[in-house]
């Protein structure tokens, strides 16, 4: 199915009147990759997807498939499969006819259409529901039909626009596995739009974090999870503790971040002066005498562990995830491993 090498987005922009929904996005997608566009609502991720699909025209920039410009083409000539947030199944056609639609539009012989539709139905495990109308299916089943309909045309690229956001939590996790399984089994190339960092981390080979129409960072899930480049990416990746600090380079690759009574070590480079230190609640550890003093505030029981507010001597709050129960009001000491603290200064610190 990999009948292409790469799709290249070259500084693509899309404006709505005076508002720039997407600004000069550069991105290269290689055959077989699973790429997520991740960001809060209004960040331009869906605009980018619609531009790739051809449902929105570009204000500027170029889209090239193996060097051939495709941005002037209408959607029906690009031939990318698309899975919509509301599935967009044709309500008057049976599941089978829905899946066959794209093949019929390509003028494929009836016998082959039937054969490929049956194969697609089996693949999404709906072989016994082929004659139902979409309205008679559950949300998860409709989702499978939508994926089958997009994948059966064997498109060079499958575009998914928040396909799981209408499903309940349990089904969402199930369908997440299903999407990755289909991606692997069918050898698809997928661009996946989501605002859910867990989805993006678990599904993707590569993640593009977007905000206000601009690409903020691009990298593997591990890179983004461990080394967010900017504060807004860090916030999106679960760095829920954010402290204003004074940073100072403390030898090569070591930073000391101080703020009132708190003193944190961090790895990396930072100019001396005001900065922002960010770390995850999961990385806050209980410590002995050398740790930072704090008092336990509200404690939430989360099943596996406890999530506690720690009140610092200056009144600021740090969130901590603890494997042990904590008691409200107790004095404790905590520490954060330096490799888990990110220090952002200057433009990086804009959130």
């Amino acid at each position, binding site marked *: 199915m990999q009948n292409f090498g790469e799709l290249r987005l070259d500084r693509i922009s899309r404006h709505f009147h005076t508002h720039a929904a997407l600004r000069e996005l550069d991105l290269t997608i290689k055959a077989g990759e699973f790429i997520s566009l991740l960001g809060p609502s209004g960040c331009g991720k869906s605009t980018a997807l619609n531009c790739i699909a051809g449902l929105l025209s570009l204000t500027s920039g170029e889209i090239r498939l193996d060097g051939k410009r495709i941005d002037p083409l209408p959607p029906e000539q690009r031939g990318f499969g698309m899975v919509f947030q509301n599935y967009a199944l*044709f309500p008057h056609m049976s599941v089978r006819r829905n899946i066959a639609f794209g093949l019929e539009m390509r003028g494929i012989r009836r016998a082959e259409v039937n054969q490929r539709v049956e194969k697609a139905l089996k693949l999404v495990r709906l072989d016994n529901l082929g004659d139902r109308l979409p309205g008679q299916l559950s949300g998860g089943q409709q989702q499978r039909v939508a994926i089958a309909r997009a994948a059966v045309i064997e498109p060079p690229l499958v575009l998914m626009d928040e396909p799981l956001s209408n499903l309940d939590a349990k089904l969402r996790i199930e369908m997440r596995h299903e999407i990755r399984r289909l991606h692997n089994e069918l050898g698809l190339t997928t661009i996946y739009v989501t605002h859910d960092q867990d989805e993006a981390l678990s599904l993707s080979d590569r993640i593009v974090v977007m905000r206000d129409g601009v690409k903020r960072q691009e990298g593997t899930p591990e890179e983004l999870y461990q080394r967010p480049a900017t504060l807004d990416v860090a916030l999106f990746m679960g760095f829920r503790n954010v402290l204003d600090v004074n940073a100072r380079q403390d030898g090569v690759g070591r930073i000391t971040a101080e703020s009132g009574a708190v003193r944190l070590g961090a790895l990396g480079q930072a100019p001396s002066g005001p900065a922002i230190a960010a770390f995850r609640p999961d990385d806050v550890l209980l410590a002995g005498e050398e740790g930072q003093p704090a008092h336990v505030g509200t404690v939430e029981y989360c099943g596996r562990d406890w999530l506690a507010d720690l009140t610092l001597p200056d009144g600021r709050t740090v969130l901590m995830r603890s494997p042990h129960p904590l008691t409200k009001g107790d004095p404790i000491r905590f520490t954060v491993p330096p490799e888990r603290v990110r220090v952002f200064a200057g433009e990086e610190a804009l959130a």
Partner: protein
Amino acid sequence: MSGAVHNAASPPSAAPPRTARADDARAAGRDLRPLLVLPGLAVVVALFLYPFLYGLFLSFEPLEGGALANYIRFFSENRLYGTIGTTLWLSLPITVLNVGLALPVAYALRVPSTSQRIITTILVVPITLGTVLAAQGLLSYLSPQGWMNRALLDLGLIVEPIRLLHKPAAVVISLVITGFPFAFLMMLSYVTGIDPTLARAAATLGAPAHRQFFRIYLPLLAPGIAITFALCFVQAFAVFPSAVMLGAPAGPTRVISIAAYEAAFEDYDYSMASAIALIMGAVQLGVVAFVLGLRNLAYRGPVASGKG
């Protein structure tokens, strides 16, 4: 007002027993609220059912002859039964024209925009005018000395006035002017009720614009087209003012309502007039039933998609 007087006049102890009785009725499972429908029902019976039945029975009591004499006469006289064909020959093409024009225009304007609002507003005006005013206006506009002919003559596009008045053409024009906006507004609400994502999905699957229309929009619109057709047809079938004022009521536009009018107010044969009115109703019902029967062949479920 009378209630207030009553309350003021009656002793305070008069109220509790009534409440108690209402509670009893509710406790016994007798819900009296359905009785609220009675006034409405009375209006329907008095204004629709009674005249209908009165006319039905009247039609079987002809001035002379047996019970079916009116009907036998209607179907044996060409100038009477011929009006069915005349009326259908006017109203069916007009309906097809109205719905046929309304569908593409509504489809083209399906995305909310300024032009959609402006055109919709402009088109509401003819609806409010009514057929008589539109016919009156056309009478002077289309006349040999009217604006249209004067303009065309002055521009040198024609040598002598086009004569449209007192021909079926003028009736058709007037009924399109009043009927099209109605059909358009109905079709617009059906078209905009269809989730535009469906067409986008069809596009990504390789369907160019015409196939998006024929494979997605048209099947989903079919029930709406049938309803619009039925309502437009009923309006056009009952045409009377424009057929009299703009057409040739003695000849090609002698529609069935003219025959009924003549029977009632020129021959004073109310029995015959009732019979004609009932035949008119039966023909309308036949066409509407046929169209709605076709509707049942189409998909009639929700036109949105997904659960979201």
